[in-house]
């Protein structure tokens, strides 16, 4: 049986996803504040021809508590702006997709749109964007424009909480809609440089987006000419029905967090159903399963390292995504199983950076290639191309010629 190749992404955050990662990382404690560190990680991921890398971000300090800083001095704290990191990586790489995370809650859709479009120009068509909502009180306090109450993780189904979460995602939906309209607001051929008439652009090919919604209105057009991909790739991390629907309406790629193949199949089923319900047009969502990975040459070594990290952390580490620890060969078997369950690929979260990224690129990827499950190189082109997504025409160009 020949299998479809899978998509492979890596999620970069701090010195790795395990809270004690910094204790064992080969990189220095302050490395995530340096350009060199991010360039090296991106270079490593690109050598293994991964589809894309994501960069986490948040508008508050890392914390184990939902209501604010936890006062822990023994874990990594502090981070740089993800768009700035992605932009800095762009000229140093040639093929890999660059997907920074930004909040849609306290930010301006216009700035988000121009920043990601510019990243697309700088990278020659490799930009993506992961919008997320800011549901924490601490983030709201940093802007002082609205109150967000502390959400009790144990009581997420209370009506007040459901309303707040629904609103945050509705606002995020409006933000993505505005951002995409702005990406379309310049037709590809708007710049004409017509010396005879003295015109630099044909203004009939520039369009107001005229968005009016509950949270903001935006006139347009963008200040940034249409970018190589037309619309950069939008990716969403989703754990439940509200964000699944948000992804189905607004995203190109969804990151999900199954616990086993059966769960993966169920999530894919739910996503396909919600795509139908919301009347999604265009290609179906690319579904990538998230996994925290801790890789070593033998299962015993992996187990020991995990125990060591948990011990340093003072508790067994769990997160929203499943944690795999074992050998690259064992991980290949697991990925094959989940892939057969219906996911299109994976976003791997290295437990320790750069160590577990290096294990992915130097051991896992060759093993996947041997099984015919992953590309041997880059075909050349844009991130949309890598993901099998066509370049959309500007909605306004379509309207103009209709």
């Amino acid at each position: 049986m020949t299998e479809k190749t899978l998509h492979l992404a890596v999620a970069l955050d701090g010195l790795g996803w395990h809270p004690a990662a910094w204790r064992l990382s080969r990189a220095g404690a302050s490395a995530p504040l340096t350009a060199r560190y991010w360039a090296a990680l991106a270079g490593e991921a690109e050598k293994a021809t991964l589809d894309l890398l994501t960069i986490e971000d948040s508008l508050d300090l890392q914390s184990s508590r939902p209501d604010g800083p936890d006062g822990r001095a023994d874990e990594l704290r502090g981070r740089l702006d993800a768009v700035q990191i992605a932009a800095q990586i762009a000229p140093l790489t040639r093929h890999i997709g660059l997907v920074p995370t930004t909040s849609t809650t306290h930010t301006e859709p216009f700035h988000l749109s121009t920043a990601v479009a510019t990243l697309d120009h700088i990278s020659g068509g490799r930009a993506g964007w992961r919008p997320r909502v800011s549901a924490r009180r601490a983030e709201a306090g940093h802007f002082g424009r609205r109150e967000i109450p502390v959400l009790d993780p144990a009581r997420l189904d209370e009506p007040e909480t459901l309303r707040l979460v629904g609103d945050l995602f509705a606002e995020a939906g409006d933000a993505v809609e505005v951002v995409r309209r702005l990406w379309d607001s310049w037709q590809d051929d708007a710049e004409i440089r017509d010396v005879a008439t003295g015109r630099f652009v044909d203004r009939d090919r520039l369009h107001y987006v005229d968005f009016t919604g509950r949270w903001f209105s935006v006139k347009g057009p963008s200040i940034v000419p249409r970018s190589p991909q037309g619309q950069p790739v939008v990716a969403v991390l989703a754990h439940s029905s509200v964000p699944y629907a948000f992804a189905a309406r607004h995203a190109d790629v969804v990151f999900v967090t199954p616990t086993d193949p059966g769960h993966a199949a169920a999530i894919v089923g739910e996503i396909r159903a919600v795509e139908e319900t919301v009347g999604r047009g265009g290609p179906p969502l690319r579904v990538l399963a998230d996994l925290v990975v801790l890789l070593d040459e033998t299962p015993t070594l992996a187990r020991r390292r995990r125990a060591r990290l948990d011990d340093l952390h003072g508790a067994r580490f769990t997160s929203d995504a499943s944690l795999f620890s074992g050998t690259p060969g064992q991980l290949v078997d697991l990925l094959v199983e989940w892939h057969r369950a219906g996911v299109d690929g994976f976003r791997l979260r290295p437990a320790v950076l750069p160590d577990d990224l290096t294990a992915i690129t130097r051991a896992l990827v060759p093993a996947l290639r041997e099984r015919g499950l992953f590309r041997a190189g880059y075909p050349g082109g844009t991130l949309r191309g890598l993901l099998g997504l066509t370049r959309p025409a500007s909605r306004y160009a379509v309207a103009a010629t209709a």
Partner: protein
Amino acid sequence: MPKQIILAAHFPGVNNTTVWRDPDSGSQIDFSSFVHLARTAERGRFDFFFLAEGLRLREQRGRIHDLDVVGRPDTLTVLAALAAVTTHLGLAGTLNTTFREPYELARQLASLDHLSGGRAAWNVVTTSDAFTGENFRRGGYLDRSLRYERAAEFVRTARTLWESWPAEAIVGDRDGGRYVADADPGAFAHHGDQFDIAGHFTVPRSPQVHPVILQAGDSPDGREFAASSADAIFSRHGTLEAGQEFYRDVKSRLARYGRHPDELKIIPGVTFVLGDTDAEAQERAHHIRRQQVSPQTAILLVEQLWNRDLSGYDPDGPLPAEDPDVTADTISRGRAGMYPDPVATARQWRTLAEEKGLGLRDLVIEVTGRQSFVGTARQVAERMNHFVQSDAADGFILVPHLTPGGLDEFVDRVVPLLQERGVFRAEYTGTTLRDHLGLGPARLRPRRK
């Protein structure tokens, strides 16, 4: 040692200074254009690269203005990318405070400062422009009279955030299990009229601590804001005498804030044209001015002063006989007003046109966009140096008329002459932009305990 000249490179912008109709004019959006100009500036040992910002496309008579360059990238994203392909050059950008929040902008600039190893700079601009506000959540809510109040409070708040992490906060003691020295890093609070925020900043202290602050307004309020809060002024005083007067005025304001005159650099934006002989340079200058003022642009510039629809006018014919309309709303939107007294200026233009027998376009070429420095490389170097040594400026922000090669000739021909005279660095001696500008370390407020 004679006074050292500061030099910065302005990426050609979206007004008619930028000539796009020349065969040598390249892309305004391809990253390669930004790389070319930045690397040229760095090869010339410039202090910094400068990128302006626009947040709404300009309009004239209710339609998008199409005669100049239209469209540009996002400032911060380009600067972060340039950090990867340069090593010493400062990276300055205009960023409007009206449509941003301090927490977000402060973390973007601190991130740029980390990623560039201490080369970030911010030109603080504040507008009360409801037209641009139509692209943003909070619209044009800022009253004009509050512009500098907001700018000053924004900068104060940003500096509070930049100082919020103590020096050496990250200890990374693996054996002792201590990542940060203080269990509560980045704590801050700011309670003011414009911003009322508290919490924790995410970005540890950056190499410069305070990225360099530039200010570009010329009103008394703008000068006062610069004197209290800025490290450099992007000014626009063309003649030696006007420059000296501005220089004296602004520098004299610093003492009130406990600052030394050297802590605020005065750097006018200037243009230049070079030639092998003076005559050749003058000829090239005239040719460039004709490129900058096309027949269509001439009509448009006259419309901006007259505030009337003049689309039926002949570019080679006379100026309008009637006075400007000072009662109607301005027909040009998305750019700063250029004429404080339009009626008087229009009368001067008419008089000059009659005296010299100039048609509309030739008159516009005569009165607008005259280049600051025209001559041989030696003449230009001498005049620039004279400006700086006579305290009309501390240096210049050079605005080339061509993208991306507009600075090549200056770097090849004028910079070596300035270096020969010992008034401009032959090599970088520091690593941060504060080092290049001779600003010394950022002055921090005493920490509360």
